[in-house]
């Protein structure tokens, strides 16, 4: 930010404080007043945010597209479920193992990405996701097959509300890591690699290693997200992790705004909540005259693509770019739209 700008007066700070407090209230206090079923949905929003940030590392920072992210998440979910209900391990062990396994499988895919880049790599991830869905998640001894695997909530967090706060804590941790990553050498290296591997290398960046690192981090986040998802539903089944989900993940990240933490979090939360609020607004589905009722399950995949295409063609920066004025204002800057129309943000892969 440019150093020389006049600071807002006390009133200004008060207003900013009020807004922040209100937002904090929305996130922390509101769910406390809601029923379990609704808290369950809010929890899912927090978890989606984790997943969104995971995908953002690939799609945004390294420009590697992943159309198989449902596999990343699913593997985490099933690992956690297996650890808890088959191996009889405690919740935390399940989480850790989910992150480890998530990271490892991402590493393998990363190795492939070193040879196969751009559009072709997108194909590989697509096939990978489907393979996981059709085959991996059907191995009964591991996933319980079509009957699925139970994943009870951890002791001490057995109510939806407490579990919600637990997930918020995990989200906070992920945000912290993502923030520090981009403020230190690792993140800078990733951006350089994404834009111009040659330059990155001349700057002393080991392109291979950092690409793999990005995959591992993304995999670890996704694994965590999956594990949390499993325990939130207390039950995990393969049917959950289909191609649509993968696309929803991509959409929520892109619409949220690549390389924009806040945007991605908002976008992810939005797409996990939209069906639910839609249901609240028009209870029992949208009655379009002449058409069938639109059930809430389908809302995200109906409006998702529309928002996606709108974002890609009109606002490549996504939500994140549009709320920059607000963020700048909150940081004490002026409220101006100067950079809400830059089109430099793109779903891009330098090697595509």
């Amino acid at each position: 930010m440019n150093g020389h700008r006049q600071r807002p007066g006390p009133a200004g700070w008060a207003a900013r404080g009020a807004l922040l407090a209100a937002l904090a209230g929305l996130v922390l206090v509101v769910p406390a007043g809601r029923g379990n079923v609704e808290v369950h949905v809010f929890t899912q929003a927090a978890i989606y945010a984790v997943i969104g940030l995971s995908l953002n590392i690939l799609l945004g920072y390294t420009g590697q597209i992943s159309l198989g992210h449902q596999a990343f998440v699913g593997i985490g979910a099933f690992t956690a479920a297996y650890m808890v209900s088959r191996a009889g391990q405690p919740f935390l062990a399940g989480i850790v193992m989910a992150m480890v396994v998530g990271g490892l499988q991402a590493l393998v895919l990363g190795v492939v990405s070193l040879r196969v880049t751009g559009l072709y790599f997108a194909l590989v991830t697509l096939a990978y996701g489907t393979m996981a869905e059709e085959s991996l998640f059907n191995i009964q001894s591991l996933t319980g097959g079509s009957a699925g695997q139970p994943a009870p909530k951890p002791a001490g967090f057995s109510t939806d509300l407490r579990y919600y706060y637990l997930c918020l804590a995990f989200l906070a941790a992920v945000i912290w890591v993502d923030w520090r990553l981009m403020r230190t050498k690792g993140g800078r290296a990733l951006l350089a690699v994404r834009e111009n591997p040659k330059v990155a290398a001349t700057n002393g960046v080991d392109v291979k290693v950092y690409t793999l690192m990005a995959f591992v981090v993304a995999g670890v986040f996704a694994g965590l997200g999956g594990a949390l998802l499993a325990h939130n539903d207390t039950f995990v089944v393969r049917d959950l992790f289909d191609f649509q989900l993968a696309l929803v993940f991509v959409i929520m990240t892109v619409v949220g705004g690549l390389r924009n933490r806040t945007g991605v979090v908002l976008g992810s939360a939005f797409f996990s909540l939209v069906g639910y609020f839609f249901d609240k607004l028009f209870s029992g589905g949208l009655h379009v005259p002449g058409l069938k009722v639109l059930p809430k399950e389908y809302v995200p995949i109906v409006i998702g693509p529309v928002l996606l295409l709108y974002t890609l063609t009109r606002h490549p920066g996504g939500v994140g770019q549009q709320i920059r004025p607000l963020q700048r204002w909150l940081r004490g800057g002026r409220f101006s739209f100067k950079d809400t129309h830059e089109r430099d943000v793109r779903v891009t892969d330098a090697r595509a």
Partner: protein
Amino acid sequence: MSAHVLAQAVVIGVITGAGYGLVALGLVLVHKSSGVFNFAQGEFGTVAVYTLYRVHDRIGVPLVPAIAVGLVASVAMALATERVVVRRLFDAPRVTLLVATAGVALLAISLELWLGEARLRFIQPALGRLDRFSLFGVQVSDQRILILVALLGLAVLLGLFFSRTNLGLAILAVSQEPVATELMGISVRRLSSFIWGLAGLLAGVAGMLAAGDAKSFGPGFMTFGALIPGFTAAVLGGMNSLPGAFVGGVVVGVAQSLAVSSSAFKAIPGPGAVMVFVLLVVVLTLRPQGLLGKA
């Protein structure tokens, strides 16, 4: 596995694979002309089938005109995609376009889920008795014979189109040398529309044949069932050769059905998907120019 099962697998593989080949053709055409990986290719087909079903079963239009309407629908969707999405993102990175077309596909699927019912629909075979013919001791339904014939016919027609007609040659030209073609006085833009339309048509035919073969269809069945094999087929063909794509389709189809019917894979669930994934990765890593594509 027994000789019978083997023969069976091969025959089935060839038929389903030819279907993949059609999808692959569309993918390659589009990729050659505009460098786009079109993830909506499969959905063009599904839309054609849904339209056909609605017009034929609901409104009661006889089959042949209904089929025509269905194909028109898929072509229209393809053209719309080209106009509304692809042109707007013309200078955007190709991956952006990929995501965009994926968005188009998802939109189509969600509309199918919403407007048509979410469940699988079963359709009666167009032909009555099912088991008249026998290839290598394998019973093959009239339906499948019909499909095989249709596919071969289509392949031949396409071959002629691209080797004999000016338009066909122009398309090949534009895919090799856009600028040169422009100089030759052929409008690349108009060609682009035409190519997308053609891709839509191919997808439509592929969708109808696939639905006829499985005797059932549901929302997004082409995307979930044929898109990935189609891409794999295209990659086998090096993403640039039309015959290569078609042959690649057959290869994928046979490989898939062998994997499914061979007892070796019994332990693994979903052997078909595994086979496709392995095939794709192996080809891309070991022979990126494709098995049949020129280096």
